């Protein structure tokens, strides 16, 4: 899991970079993507040399990714909007939206997994439950998050097993946090996406 968790967050970071650099002139786009790629390599190499656990590296990368999102978006606006025509701006935004919509559900799965794992720790801190209940709900939500993460990492290699893990994680997590409304809705979106994906895999391409 340790090496996989790193490759998973590295993939997530690259996927996000490919989303927000979409539609930006070639040189700038390639430069940003290459710099992110180099940064990920340098950080993993440095942490490995320092004997730092892979999950700590993965956690820090996710943090760097999430905290940098506002700057990424404003950088994108700077690249697309100044001295460019309205049509170019519209075109750039459209391609970004297309890429985002293609990756929207995997990003949603990643975010939901992160929320569940973070909640697993958060439940342990809340004081309005008994120790046993805190441990139980923390474990349930934590398992849901880990199932989602594991499924996301294996989605390309073992789609059926990964879909089962994601589905189970989404249902488990949503059931444990149903009062938030948002998590059941997100789980529903994920389940519909998984069902559509499995149907497409079952029907062979005829064209």
């Amino acid at each position, binding site marked *: 899991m340790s090496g996989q968790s790193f490759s998973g967050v590295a993939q997530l970071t690259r996927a996000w970079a490919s989303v927000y650099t979409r539609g930006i002139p070639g040189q700038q786009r390639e430069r940003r993507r290459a710099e992110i790629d180099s940064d990920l390599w340098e950080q993993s190499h440095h942490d490995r040399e320092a004997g730092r656990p892979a999950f700590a590296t993965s956690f820090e990368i996710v943090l760097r990714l999430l905290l*940098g999102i506002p700057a990424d978006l404003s950088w994108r606006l700077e690249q697309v909007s100044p001295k460019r025509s309205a049509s170019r701006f519209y075109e750039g935004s459209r391609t970004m939206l297309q890429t985002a919509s293609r990756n929207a559900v995997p990003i949603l799965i990643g975010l939901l997994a992160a929320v569940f794992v973070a909640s697993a720790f958060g439940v342990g801190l809340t004081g309005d439950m008994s120790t046993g209940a805190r441990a139980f709900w923390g474990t349930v939500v934590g398992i849901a998050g880990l199932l989602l993460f594991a499924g996301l990492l294996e989605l390309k290699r073992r789609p059926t097993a990964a879909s089962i893990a994601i589905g189970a994680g989404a249902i488990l997590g949503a059931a444990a946090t149903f009062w938030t409304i948002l998590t059941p809705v997100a789980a529903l979106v994920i389940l519909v996406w998984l069902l559509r994906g499995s149907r497409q895999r079952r029907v062979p391409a005829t064209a």
Partner: protein
Amino acid sequence: MSILETAIALRRSGEEEFHGFAIAKAIKEHGETRALTAHGTLYKALGRMEKAGLLESRWEDALAAAADNRPRRRLYHVTGLGERAYSAATTREHQPKTTLEEGLAPS
């Protein structure tokens, strides 16, 4: 500690050029932040500083990266303008307040 300040400190310690992760690590090690600077914040700032003429950058030799079996680094260095801007900023910071500024300061 700012990017420029850290880059100048690196330069004084013999590292003429630096890449993105190296400067993030140096900022963290100098104790200003407990975490590495976020990707978006870091590369946006580096780009802006380069545009302003405070930094210059180049891709490192592809062969050097291939020899280490890693992606190519974008290497930055502080320009003369960057040095002067940093000196001017630190001089201003250490200048004693004028009588007018002291008078305007809240008591």
